[in-house]
């Protein structure tokens, strides 16, 4: 659309013709109040708060539906408009209860703000208010009917945004209420059968919809709000955690999207929004455990536990050699921790026996793309791509945010979504074309497309630019063939789907027996030649480490993983192995350990994580759990307990930098502070602590191919791109990668081992199971 020029409050503005006035004004910094208008959703024009005066038009106009055209003249603030808005507010308050002092929304309520701004403190209505009781629709969603101002945001976000359509409006006029989709005794809806994302709660401008986990717990101004990254699936939504002090550290009381600054904007699924309560789970480990003479785990001090673990690791290494020690890393710890873990394994324990629970074949992906930079697509690009081919998987369940991005793109930009799958999935409702594939027939996809026989392949071949999104159905050679197909064509980019918050980071950081960080083969270590003692031969994979036939390891260190629940594992393999586990809970694996260290969760530490699309984001410490320590710190302390020089592991306090930590006096006072300011401005802040993960991030940037980060953006809380192996020649292998992959197949309410400790999610899941059982019985 061509730009047009129009006048608002005497200011000349320019915007493409057809832009909504309210949007054009917002861009220019002129705020027009609104309740029902919400960017990206259909127009409702129900609340009349956005009234403005347009010259030559007899009545006030709604800015949320007025499109701009050349030469128009608008007034957005005048006594007349103020009076109109005041009157609207008064009408809304006509039946609104005066319970701001106890309402969850109090302090961040749009109605409160408007009342404050426009007055309407007195009401001319003498009618009694219609009170109706609050309803609980599900464990997650409560509805307080009298507080509702009928803006229909919730109805639209659930329908248009989530494609769930679980909410509607019942009755007429003053009797109108929002209703959920499962009818109760009296016909009106009173239960929800939905995806329980909580989008409706967050989008509600008032306190009508409240969340089961947060309601009546605290007030917004009593919390600290920390933006970090969701710890569940591999999409990496930014989530703002509301944290309050408690008597054992601090308590997370809310998850939402307060600043909407992440790539997920206002989106969060049930796991991101409600799945934080595991941090306060009663079974949370808060003290190290040591196996005593009687063979039982008993609480120990950190000093004792570290001493025992360190001494034993040292002894096994020195007497039997590093090759008898194994290390299993995590899909949920930070990049820095994963990097440190493999560095610890390789340089301190002198072993390449390191692996993680692989949920997809990132090594094959990196290998197939080696030497072809710029061929991966970030999650931010999905909502504007003209055409997307989604192969396999079920993003609605496994990658809720990706599903949201795809729906948004189709809805707002009419993007062409093509789906090839062996089973029907919900996203097909948005698809332009679908293609059924035989289960196990994925690897023939490239040939099928090239043949160009079907309408589906013809349409794909006709696309000028395409993002191909695929997952664990493609492994090893299948990944290669699909990528080779895409590389032949000009504008094809890829995204590869795995599970868990940092599985991509775990792979990128070299938790492989034969690959160093950045998929650099251990046999040709390149930049990692500087590692002291790096063993030259590839080590054992996870199943090999846990294979009885291999005679068992002398020692095994498991960080944030629960490998003994895997099908192929025979516990006999661990009989003579000294097992050290770092985890949040006494998992099946931890229960077998000789030493258990209580670890901090992703919400209790800093660092970075990389989502499955290669978008890297900063994780910020939100809460604190007395007794638990970040895995980073545990590893550093473990190295210390083994008598290692920690500085070799974590490059902290390096160089000539001597900071006086603000202790200088006299003429030099403040010198160190000024110096620190200068260093920071140049991205060189002094790493003064061996527990500072950013010291390791510096090393990652220096050594790991593909991790040249845009620090400025990262530090301001944005996501930045990483590349998988942009320049490496294609020699990566990740030995027999295909068979090692066990996808998590988590649903909307499960999150593997961690999910068991999310009580809120479990309740939601039970509710949904009940609703489905009842629906099926009807």
């Amino acid at each position, binding site marked *: 659309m061509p730009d047009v020029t129009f006048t608002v409050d005497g200011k000349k503005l320019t915007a493409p013709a057809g832009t909504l006035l309210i949007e054009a004004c917002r861009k220019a910094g002129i705020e027009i109040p609104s309740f029902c208008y919400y960017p990206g959703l259909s127009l409702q024009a129900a609340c009349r708060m956005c009234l403005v005066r347009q010259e030559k038009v007899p009545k006030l106009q709604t800015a949320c539906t007025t499109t701009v055209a050349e030469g128009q003249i608008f007034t957005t603030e005048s006594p007349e408009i103020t009076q109109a808005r005041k009157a609207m507010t008064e009408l809304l308050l006509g039946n609104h209860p005066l319970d701001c002092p106890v309402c969850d929304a109090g302090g961040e309520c749009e109605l409160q703000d408007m009342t404050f701004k426009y007055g309407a403190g007195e009401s001319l209505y003498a009618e009694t208010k219609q009170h109706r009781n609050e309803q609980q629709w599900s464990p997650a969603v409560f509805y307080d009917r009298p507080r509702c101002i009928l803006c229909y945001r919730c109805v639209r976000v659930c329908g248009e945004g989530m494609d769930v*359509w*679980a*909410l*509607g*409006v*019942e*009755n*007429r006029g003053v009797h109108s209420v929002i*209703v*959920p*989709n499962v*009818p109760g005794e009296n*016909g*009106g*809806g009173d239960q929800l059968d939905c995806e329980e994302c909580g989008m409706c709660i967050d989008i509600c401008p008032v306190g009508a919809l409240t969340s089961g986990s947060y309601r009546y717990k605290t007030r917004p101004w009593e919390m600290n709000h920390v933006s970090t990254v969701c710890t569940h699936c591999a999409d990496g939504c930014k989530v703002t955690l509301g944290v309050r002090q408690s008597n054992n550290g601090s308590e997370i009381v809310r998850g939402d999207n307060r600043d909407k600054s992440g790539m997920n904007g206002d989106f969060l699924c049930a796991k991101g929004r409600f799945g934080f309560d595991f941090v306060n789970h009663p079974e949370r480990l808060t003290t190290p455990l040591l196996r005593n003479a009687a063979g039982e785990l008993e609480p120990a001090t950190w000093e004792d536990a570290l001493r025992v673990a360190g001494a034993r690791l040292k002894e096994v290494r020195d007497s039997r050699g590093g090759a008898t020690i194994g290390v299993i890393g995590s899909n949920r710890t930070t990049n820095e921790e994963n990097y440190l873990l493999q560095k610890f394994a390789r340089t301190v324990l002198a072993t390449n026996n390191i692996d993680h629970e692989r949920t997809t074949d990132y090594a094959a992906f990196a290998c197939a793309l080696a030497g072809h930079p710029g061929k991966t697509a970030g999650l931010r690009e999905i909502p504007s791509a003209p055409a997307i081919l989604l192969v396999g998987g079920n993003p609605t369940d496994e990658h809720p945010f990706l599903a949201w991005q795809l729906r948004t793109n189709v809805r707002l930009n009419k993007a062409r979504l093509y789906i090839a799958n062996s089973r029907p999935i919900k996203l097909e409702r948005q698809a332009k074309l679908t293609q059924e594939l035989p289960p196990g027939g994925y690897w023939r996809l490239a040939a099928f497309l090239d043949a160009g026989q079907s309408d589906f392949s013809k349409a794909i071949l006709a696309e000028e630019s395409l993002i191909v999104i695929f997952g664990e159905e493609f492994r090893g050679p299948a990944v290669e063939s699909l990528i080779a197909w895409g590389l032949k064509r000009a504008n094809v980019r890829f995204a590869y789907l795995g599970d868990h918050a940092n599985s991509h980071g775990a792979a990128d950081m070299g938790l492989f027996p034969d690959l160093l960080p950045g998929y650099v083969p251990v046999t040709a270590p390149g930049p990692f030649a500087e590692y002291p003692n790096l063993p030259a031969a590839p080590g054992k994979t996870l199943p090999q480490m846990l294979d009885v036939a291999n005679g068992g390891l002398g020692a095994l260190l498991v960080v944030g993983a629960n490998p003994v629940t895997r099908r192929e594992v025979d516990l006999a393999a661990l009989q003579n192995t000294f097992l050290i586990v770092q985890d949040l809970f006494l998992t099946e694996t931890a229960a077998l350990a000789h030493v258990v260290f209580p670890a901090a969760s992703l919400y209790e530490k800093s660092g970075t994580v990389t989502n499955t699309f290669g978008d890297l984001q900063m994780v910020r410490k939100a809460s604190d759990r007395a007794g638990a320590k970040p895995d980073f710190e545990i590893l550093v302390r473990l190295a210390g307990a083994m008598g290692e020089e920690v500085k070799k592991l974590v490059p902290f306090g390096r160089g000539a930098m001597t900071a006086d930590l603000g202790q200088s006096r006299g003429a030099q006072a403040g010198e160190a502070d000024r110096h620190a300011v200068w260093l920071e401005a140049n991205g060189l802040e002094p790493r003064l602590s061996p527990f500072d993960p950013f010291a390791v991030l510096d090393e990652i940037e220096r050594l790991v191919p593909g991790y040249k980060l845009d620090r400025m953006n990262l530090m301001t809380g944005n996501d930045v791109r990483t590349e998988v192996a942009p320049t490496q020649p294609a020699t990566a292998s990740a030995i027999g990668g295909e068979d090692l992959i066990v996808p998590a197949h988590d649903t909307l309410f499960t999150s593997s081992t961690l999910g068991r400790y999310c009580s809120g999610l479990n309740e939601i899941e039970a509710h949904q199971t009940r609703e489905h059982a009842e629906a099926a019985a009807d």
Partner: protein
Amino acid sequence: MSTETISIFSPELATRFDALVTKYPVKRSALVPMLLYAQDEIGYLSDAVITEIAHRLGLTELDVRNVASYYSMLRFKPAGRYNIQVCTNICCMLRGAYDLYERFREELNIGPHGATADGLFSLEEVECIGACSWAPAIQVNYDFHDELTPDLVPGILADYRGRAQAEGSKNHA
């Protein structure tokens, strides 16, 4: 899906619905007439009615309930065989509609939206039924009675009781 395999409606009505859904540019436009016809046949909008109509139109049941609950003439509970609707809008009110209404209440011994134990009568207050010139007026199902006084109430009721007897026990719902 144009034809339901098993319909809860009579074959005539089912055929009528099949035709109705093809009449509009979008199927859901047939919703309001369908609800009305379904209510006339079944007596009220039962869960089964809502399920079938939603299915016929490709809507969610929630959609159907939302529309249906907007209209006060659509009901979700069975009414009596003769649904007495007393207009209490301005003209009728000025000419004694409330006396009339009270008399019906006394005679039938039921409250608003109630139904008699024998299922014969139900009673409700309604908005203007367009018979203002002959106020006060009532509507019993689709029959009008106008220029009424409370004294005429027992006669009207007796009349319908007689009719019911004549028609035998053929039940409405």
